[in-house]
């Protein structure tokens, strides 16, 4: 099971706690993980990545295993510790605004 931490506003929107767990079929890529999140929580479609371009929203970041994965290609494999559930995949809202 893959663990994903969502930012507060998306937890509220999806009606979930700080962490959700998902089954993602191999190969586990960023795209496959986001597909799984959106399939389980349809209200999150368009909120993490743009509906049309599928690009990550500019003010969101993806972190895992103390690394910034935001600029990784969507089809790159996620770290092995994320795949086996030892570390969460963090979706983080950038610090900005008031």
């Amino acid at each position, binding site marked *: 099971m893959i663990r994903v931490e969502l930012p507060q506003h998306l937890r509220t929107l999806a009606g979930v706690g700080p962490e959700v767990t998902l089954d993602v079929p191999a190969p586990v890529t960023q795209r496959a993980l986001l597909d799984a999140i959106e399939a389980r929580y349809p*209200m999150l479609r368009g*909120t993490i990545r743009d509906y*049309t371009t599928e690009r990550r929203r500019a003010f969101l970041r993806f972190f895992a295993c103390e690394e910034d994965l935001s600029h990784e290609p969507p089809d790159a494999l996620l770290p092995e510790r994320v795949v086996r559930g030892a570390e969460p995949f963090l979706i983080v809202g950038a610090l900005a605004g008031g």
Partner: protein
Amino acid sequence: MSGVRVLVGTRKGAFILSSDGKREKWDVNGPFFAGWQIYHLKGSPADPNRIYASQTSDWFGQTMQRSNDGGRTWEAVGNKFAYEGVPGTHQWYDGTAHPWEFKRVWHLEPSLTDPDTVYAGVEDAALFRSNDGGQNWSELPGLRTHGSGPKWQPGAGGMCLHTIILDPTNAQRMYIAISAAGAFRTDDGGVTWKPINKGLVSKYIPDPTAEVGHCVHRIAMHNSRPNTLFMQKHWDVMRTDDHGDQWTRVSGNLPTDFGFVIDVHAHEPETIYVVPIKSDSEHFPLDGKLQVFRSRTGGNQWESLTKGLPQRDCYVNVLRDAMAVDALDRCGVYFGTTGGQVYASNDAGDSWNAVVRDLPPVVSVEVQTLSAP
């Protein structure tokens, strides 16, 4: 007994203010969607329990919400707004071509007869419609593609379609307005559109009388006179009596005719309201005095309404979607400010009270007039 429900969209959530027909005591509920920008909420005229809301965020994009119980509970509905075909380009601030990109929903206009049909005006400017209660949205591309689109340019707030008016006597006719393109009308249910900007004069564009490019801030109509429209342009208050074919300036004795909101009395089609703002470079009331101006003559002759409004040190703005009227016998008038106040008048503007004073900046105000169950 009848009552009212005031739907308030703010920069940090939505609020619902409720009162009975006297409109003296208020219940305040909210924030709903706390922390999100709520550009607009509006109830269905066909079913007041059905309310639509535009929930948006610079972080998370656009989400749409729907209530089926008058705003007590909400559910997220469809938020996919895809332009038909290849969107093409419009003018950017510097005059270069810029790709059309969806950013947010500014305004929602539910059908007059079907609770499941609702229109959405979006940035970058386009008109969408849902026929299934907001689950799926389809563009009415004839507006964006009618020919002048590449000349449209964003106003300071973005290139937004902010006004949608449905003609209650002609289901095929609709009016919309875009900053900064101008006003448009369809007579065939949204298939084709024509600019209706003749008579507008805008000194801030190269050709002040151009067919498009005018920064229309808001248009209002009285249901009994669908051929008459009132407009608050960037500068100038205007009216038309031939469904937009020709506009006439009716600023008259206003101390300044810059502003954003305009609305029409529920029972007097020649009584209109504006909130003059000092200028396009100073977005606050003249001399720190918040004044609503009312004309009982459809423009030109205006009176200042100040009773209950701050008359010193007031430097708020009233944004384009932040005024509404109720339909009770003594017409109620409401407006919200960027300082977080929502003012209500239960006597057609003669006097005002602040229902709330410390909300986040108010973006939109709508009113539902409710009958007793």
